[in-house]
């Protein structure tokens, strides 16, 4: 069965027709060509497909597209641009918070929500909040550093990008 839905995607309101069984991830990737959301586990465990629905992180791989009717969706493409990255994107860039980056859009989107809810998170709060985003490369230390830098920068503190130093 097909449904007419109205969805605001990265600030732009669109009328779309979707099948009942179509997931938000399929809508984003197959219809809208927003490739920042990625399928990996297919069951809401890994966070690679994270999108924000009305500002809350969801696993788009199991979120039915029809549920997005009347809602606002944000993907990594809606956060910032190459010339003006979102502060969280800038923190991940400057602190090397990625390796292969398959998980990175999900990490960054979830971080924006974390910092909205807890502007000054402790390390344990960050770990608890981010537990649904997995990184198989094990870039967790740099991701944690990036999140802490983003939080500090949101508080107006100046955080030095990681220094460009030699190995001695």
């Amino acid at each position: 069965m097909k449904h007419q839905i109205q969805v605001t995607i990265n600030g732009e309101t669109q009328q779309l027709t979707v099948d009942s069984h179509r997931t938000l991830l399929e809508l984003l990737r197959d219809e809208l060509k927003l490739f920042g959301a990625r399928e990996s586990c297919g069951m809401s465990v890994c966070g690679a497909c994270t999108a924000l629905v009305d500002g809350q992180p969801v696993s788009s791989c199991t979120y039915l597209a029809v549920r997005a009717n009347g809602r606002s969706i944000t993907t990594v493409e809606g956060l910032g641009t190459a010339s003006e990255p979102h502060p969280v994107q800038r923190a991940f860039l400057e602190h090397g918070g990625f390796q292969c980056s398959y998980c990175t859009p999900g990490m960054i989107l979830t971080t924006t929500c974390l910092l909205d809810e807890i502007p000054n998170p402790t390390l344990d709060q960050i770990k608890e909040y981010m537990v649904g985003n997995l990184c198989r490369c094990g870039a967790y230390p740099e991701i944690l550093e990036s999140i802490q830098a983003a939080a500090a920068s949101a508080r107006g503190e100046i955080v030095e990008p990681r220094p460009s130093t030699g190995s001695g």
Partner: protein
Amino acid sequence: MIDLHIVGTDVHRVEALDKVTGRLEFVDNMELPGMLHGMLLRSPVPHGRIANIDTSRAKRLRGVRAVLTGQDLLGMNIDPFTGPAFKDQAALAIGKVRYVGDPIAAVAAVDRETAEEALDLIDVEIEELPAVFDVHAAMAPDAPLISERLIPAKTFADLIELLGGDDVPATSNACFQYKLRRGDVEAGLRNADKVFHHTFSNPATQHGDLETHCTVAQWLNSGKLQVWSATQSPSYVRIMLANMFHMPESRVRVVVPYLGGGFGSKLYMKLEPVTSLLAQASGRPVKVRLTRKEEFLTITKHGVTATLTTGVNSDGQIIARDCQIMWDTGAYADIGPRVTHKSGYTSAGPYTIPNVRIDSFSVYTNKPPAGAFRGFGIMQVCWAYESQMDVIARDMGWDPLEFRLKNLYHDGDIHATGTPIYSLGLDESVRAAADAIGWTASQARPSPQPSPTRGEGAKLVRGKGIACSMKAMITPSVAASTLHVHSDGSVSVLSSAVDMGQGSDTELSQIAAETLGVRLEDVSVVHPDTDVTPYDLITAGSRTTFHMGNAVRLAAADAQQQLFVTAAEILDAGTDELVARDGKIWAKAAPDRATTFGQVMLTRFEARAGTVTGTGLFQTYHGPTDLQTGQSDNVTAHWLCGATAAEVEVDTETGQLKILNIATAVDVGKAINPFACRQQIAGATLQGTGPALFEEMLQDAGQLINGSFADYKIPSFLDLPDNTEPIIVEAPHRDGPYGAKGIGEAGIFAIAPAIANAIADALGGARIRDLPLTPEKILRAVREAGGSA
């Protein structure tokens, strides 16, 4: 001392902005006009004869454009069998299925739903055969034969030597045996003051790279085959597709964008054959992307059982070691024989032992194929020998660190294979890791230490452990690179090395810029595209920095030499007097009269035109191996090594484990990018905690029972150790680019035994011999240690 400007600095990844904005190219982002989607029907039984497959209903389904079975492949003018060691795996099973998940039919349809529906309409009759699920059952005299013939693939130089060229009937499920004989093991064990005999095992685990396998294939009307694939081995895939379709290599194009992780899972042929066949049969481009569940059924890390018998003298010297290693390679050999061979080399550990005997067997079972995983088998053998080292040290009353230091290989020693050791920073790595967790000689203490956090009567106990390892990098091996200098003096580096997250684009850019003398921002790396990028063996085995780094260095030096001819005319100086840096070229004696790379090109071609091309070829050679003794004067061009030290806290009531500190030191030779090196070492350490603590593929009668990320857990933020410390050790490699070594794997080798040794230290010596180190096993160890510990 060379004055370096770009090599040795922490420059950001060249593709960083694409990564944080989500714009990075992956194969699954790709769409071609008219593209179909392919899916695979997989065997529900572990071993059986395919009696009949009826695809007629599937073919009639609207939207289906092609349906293929193994039987169809026999009617085509192709060689349907591939495999890097033995040609034992067809694109779709022919005649027999050998594991639950073995692909038996493929469908291409207008979308994935239609393809999936078509799979349900295929009727398959399979007559089940007896099956075997562990190596010992598979080696029994009456075990069913899984592969009836052994047909060597004859593709890789090392495997041609080992496997020969003849197609022979299989006589058992052991498809390969590696033998090493050095000294007299029997006499050594007889004369030893004490002999230790233990068996250690680890289960099959998953790579778990977040990007699943994905391939797009397209046939041009001219007959050329184009393949875009998430593969770590584009050059190999091109050669194998050319063989399969009886075409010249020049008419097969394999393109690789970025990979969302690899860790060995995306090596050799995976989806490329079946996707190309579906594209051929349908006359349309086809994409095949695996689901996570299918990943579990496609490739695994080998489960291994290792039995070590070790003789030591009371002065602390190891004098003999016998290693019997059984590798469960699953239903198809994949690269199992090479894993068995390469990790066979070093399965006696990184120690000078005068008498060594190694028998390492690669054995078929009716389970998903096992292949390469980061470390190429070293994790499994290291688990065994580094666990046993601590058992011995405790029994003999020695400090585990001192015991290791006394026996470690050093430069100038002769390895068990007969090959000299050189450029090995192993001793430094072991000491650095131990220092980082505050190792003291009191580690041989007999009783567990109560946790200072709980005080008297605490249920928490702490311990420290150390483990180390070394590996022989694959040799012989070939890497080639082409470097174009464009009309404005900017540079393209053409390389078939795959950037799967390790950062090779950045590091190769640094090497090119440093060597040629241009700015980093002037360099662009062209990703693998076999139409333009030259041959590279594989992106695996920690070989890219050493091999491709050298190839790029040579290509840059070649281009510089050509440009210096023109620059010398401009500057009125000899070519040997010139210096290039940051895009400028000047004579040493007259630094104020510099020219630029762009100006040199303009002068050379008299216009904004032209290309100057440098080429680099780096090839390593091995000495012939005696197949009966494994002896060779040169088994490898590069020894790599690492060490891990861990401090843990064990809850003796629940078996819960907390890693307080984990420090991994890796000898990187020379850090091209120190930040990237530390990130690789820390990443390997954290990835290694998964198989150490909880990862395990569970099967029941050949059926995988935890094939999802809900049931098979990989490390998350909540599994992080309290402190993770990556340590760079720099013992330059005599042949490395700027002294650099390969580092991708060394950080993961010793994670599990370091943690297990720390647990044993906390529990008064109680030893877990089979991975993973789950709370249940830790609790059993607590009881073994005498109750509350």
